């Protein structure tokens, strides 16, 4: 193994991040025996070792072989996702785990990587983008796993598929206007949904003029009609002034807005009451201080009370006394921030940033389109999880139940994430190798 080609920065950062997670689990076990039994640490260490072995094993291969297996990988993951609905074990109302004795496996973790590989293969083979119809396949590829995961129902795990799709399409040379349309659609859909649910739960918010317009379906209809009329006016005015405007483009823009508005209604209709609450409660945790808001409030208290240097290992009151919920999974960052303070939290952020940064550089230096796209997908997956999870613990993102990659407790997630790092390492090592 050529030392120069092996990305030591990435590897060491990954190991340190994993160790920080184990440190978090250690303090949870010893501080609060109720929250976690000691075998979660054993399991996590074991998963880490397996992950290392997976990396070493995989480095013996050449990553383009993944292209060959991408379809099989994808189909396997879809089949597993279907099977888990039938044979999986229900944990807290979500049927997303295969439990085999002491070990459990979450097929949605596999599905993310499979999706990245298959999408990369598709994009590379397509080469040039002729029309919007070329988008149909990628969207279809996304809908299968997302649909199946929603049936579990695990809303949080589906979210990451969307940014992966958008960023990979963008990196893969998809025309910018499609990307803009997709992002616009997503942004419109999510922000409208959020505002409307917020207005529904928080009656004082309705005093705000903008909120009132968004919350009222009649106003939205008027808004769409006004938009259509003004677009038509602009079009005809431009025509008279001999100023070229694409009718098609304008209509496309209008339909994206309309789709966003309609989509937000469908989205809202599909969501359950508690999901709605969890989604918007980060905007104002005191909407539901004993329910969904409790997690955010307690997490912010835990993080904040860590101050500069933290309370010290085993001295975090918020985690030790059990005020912090879901300590070993969703809120493990809060445990670390409480224990090690800003010094520790910032250090962890820097390590995570190094991983992402190395990923971007690897994607940039990849010898072929496929490698670059896979690396981009993996980077997106990591970055999105990091933003969503840490943002949640800091109270600036909704509670979606997304774990912090490499840190949160969870064997299959850890192994799969380490495998993803292994792919990155492989892409870098084989970058001059044809």
């Amino acid at each position: 193994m050529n030392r120069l080609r092996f990305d030591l920065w990435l590897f060491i950062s990954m190991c340190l991040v994993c160790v920080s997670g184990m440190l978090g689990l250690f303090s949870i076990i010893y501080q609060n025996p109720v929250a976690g039994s000691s075998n979660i640490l054993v399991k996590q260490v074991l998963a880490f070792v397996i992950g290392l072995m997976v990396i070493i094993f995989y480095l013996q291969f050449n990553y383009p072989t993944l292209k060959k297996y991408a379809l099989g990988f994808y189909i396997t993951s879809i089949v597993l996702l279907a099977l888990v609905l039938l044979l999986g074990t229900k944990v807290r109302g979500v049927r997303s785990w295969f439990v085999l004795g002491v070990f459990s496996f979450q097929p949605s973790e596999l599905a993310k990587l499979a999706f990245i590989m298959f999408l990369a293969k598709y994009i590379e083979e397509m080469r040039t983008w002729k029309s919007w119809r070329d988008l149909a396949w990628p969207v279809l590829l996304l809908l299968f796993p997302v649909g199946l995961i929603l049936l579990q129902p695990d809303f949080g795990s589906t979210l990451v598929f969307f940014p992966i799709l958008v960023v990979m399409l963008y990196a893969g040379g998809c025309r910018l206007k499609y990307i803009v349309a997709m992002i616009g659609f997503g942004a419109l859909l999510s922000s409208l949904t959020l505002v409307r649910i917020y207005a529904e739960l928080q009656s004082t918010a309705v005093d705000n003029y903008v909120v009132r317009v968004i919350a009222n379906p009649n106003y939205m209809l008027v808004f769409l009609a006004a938009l259509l009329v003004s677009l038509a006016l602009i079009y005809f005015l431009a025509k008279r002034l001999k100023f070229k405007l694409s009718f098609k483009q304008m209509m496309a823009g209008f339909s994206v807005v309309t789709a966003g508005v309609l989509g937000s209604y469908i989205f809202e209709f599909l969501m359950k009451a508690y999901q709605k609450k969890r989604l918007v409660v980060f905007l104002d945790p005191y909407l539901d201080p004993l329910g969904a808001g409790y997690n955010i409030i307690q997490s912010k208290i835990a993080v904040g009370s860590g101050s500069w240097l933290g309370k010290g290992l085993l001295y975090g009151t918020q985690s030790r006394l059990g005020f912090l919920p879901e300590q070993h999974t969703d809120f493990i960052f809060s445990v670390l921030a409480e224990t090690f303070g800003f010094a520790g939290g910032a250090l962890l952020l820097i390590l995570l940033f190094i991983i992402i940064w190395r990923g971007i550089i690897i994607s940039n230096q990849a010898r072929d389109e496929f490698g670059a796209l896979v690396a981009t997908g993996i980077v997106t997956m990591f970055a999105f999880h990091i933003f969503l999870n840490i943002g949640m613990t800091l109270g600036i993102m909704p509670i979606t139940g997304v774990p912090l990659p490499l840190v949160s407790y969870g064997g299959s997630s850890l192994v799969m994430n380490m495998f993803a790092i292994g792919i990155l390492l492989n892409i870098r090592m084989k970058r001059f190798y044809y």
Partner: protein
Amino acid sequence: MLIQKQTLKIIALRKKKVVVVGMIVVFGFVILFLRLFYIQVLNGRYFRQVAEANRIQRFYQKAPRGQIYDRHHKLLAVNKPSFAVSFTSYSLTQQEIERVSQELALILNLSFQEVKTRTFSSLQPLDPVVIATDITREQALTIMERKTSLPGVNVAIEPKRQYPEGTLACHIIGYVGELTMEEYKELKSAGYRIGDKIGKTGLEAYYDHLLRGEHGEKQVEISAKGRQLRLLRETISLSGNDLALTIDGDLQRLVQDALQGVNGAAVVMNPRSGEVLALASSPGYNPNTFLRPVTRGEFTYLFKNRGRPLFNKAIQAQYPPASGFKIITTAAGLQEGFVIPDEKMECTGEMILGTYDQVFRCWKKDGHGKINLASAIAQSCDVYFYQLGLRLGVTRIAAYARKFGLGSLTGIDLPFEKKGIVPDRDWKKKVVKEAWYDGDTLNMCIGQGYLWITPLQMAGIFNAVANDGPYYRPKIVKNIISPDGKVYHDFFPEEQGIVELDRQHWHVIKKGLEETVTHGTGRQAYIKGLRVAGKTGTAQNPQGMDHAWFGCLAPVDNPQVVVVVFVEHGGHGGVVAAPIARQILAGYFKKSAVEGQTVTPEEIGD
């Protein structure tokens, strides 16, 4: 190695895009970094405090209030241990809270809805809310047994005030009630807490600072589920001080019984020391009523009854003293030399005054004829005193009234005492905005008109007579006893004032007062074998029935007791008030209260 041109182009394009993705990522991390800095570094101190408040729960142990008992150690206000249930939601889920509420409702015999509204009423997870107070021992035990299935539920033993003698001395003892928001704001710095009981009236209010004691506090580290992990700090509660009263419970009972059925007040004092032996206002109330939710019927009685049960008429009712005031007119006349005891004046039943021929009548239509001073007192002849009053003038009369303590507070250790009014030229100019007329003087010298005094002030007049000059501040608390049994306040007689008259003048006044009881208007207070010196009074009331007064001291040669009886809208003092005083005197001296003589109101119309 061969690199195709097309691939190169794609790679160049891709590099640009990767830069865009990289910028977004950097931006995201910067946001997370700043947010972390904001929460941990800029707000670290605040969140550290919140985390501390999170884990430390304070339990307050209420201090038992001091007991109150009478001079023979009969308990009048005590504390009974009672069980109170409170609930703290901690991090319990909605379903858990509902389940706990359901179980509590079953145990406490309350409706689920009622319990639920209370369990959900706390917004702060660590603020305990009171679910029920004064639950039975069985209920408390059941809850304690099921502690594991009732997380957040806490049963505490709290001392609860109780008045074992009920209505006895209600206006003296007063009662306690929940601290109001206004009181809390004012008393926060003195250590009062929301939910505390505070004396609302009577001794409970006057001596609240001594009775209340100090709360104990326990700081306990708790887990999110409300499990108490370890004790961080503890201070023990300190009981309040006990009060031993000068009141004689048996006499007080007797006085209250004697006042049964009338609206009025009575005061029994030891003139030698100022000790108040009994002080009653009628109708009374049961202070225990205020310790639980007041029913509609009780509310109507307490607040709508025309007799005003909550009003302590002995120190708060202000009425003209009527003929009792003639003692003061007599004292002024003798000492200032405007009359000698043997001087006889003619009473024709009326007196015509000044240029407008105003007629001032004596209570006895036919007049008393020629009588001397002692008889004028005994028969309560108004005309005699009209003439004496004109000679004295308002200034001297007012000055003597003040010497007897009228127009100022007696300083008794009870709240809300009224001081009455002693009118004079300046007062009338200021308040009524009119000049003082001779007619006003005539009204004043027989105790009518603008004069206002309380029954307790009337007792002061008789105290001065009993002691030949000095009179002592009425006091209700004899000793204050600290929780460790030390007496740190001992009773001592405190001179409230002194009326300086020559000895023989006091003799004349006493003679007149004794004659009042033996032959005069106070014959209804006569007791065989007891020398009583008293004075009737009938305060004219243009709106309705007159108010009846009777004040007396006994025995004349060595006064042991002063009794004042006042009956609102009672009619004539000699008819209504004197018999009540007789009952009290008979009870005090263990004499028979059989009516000696039958008399008609016409004979004792004052």
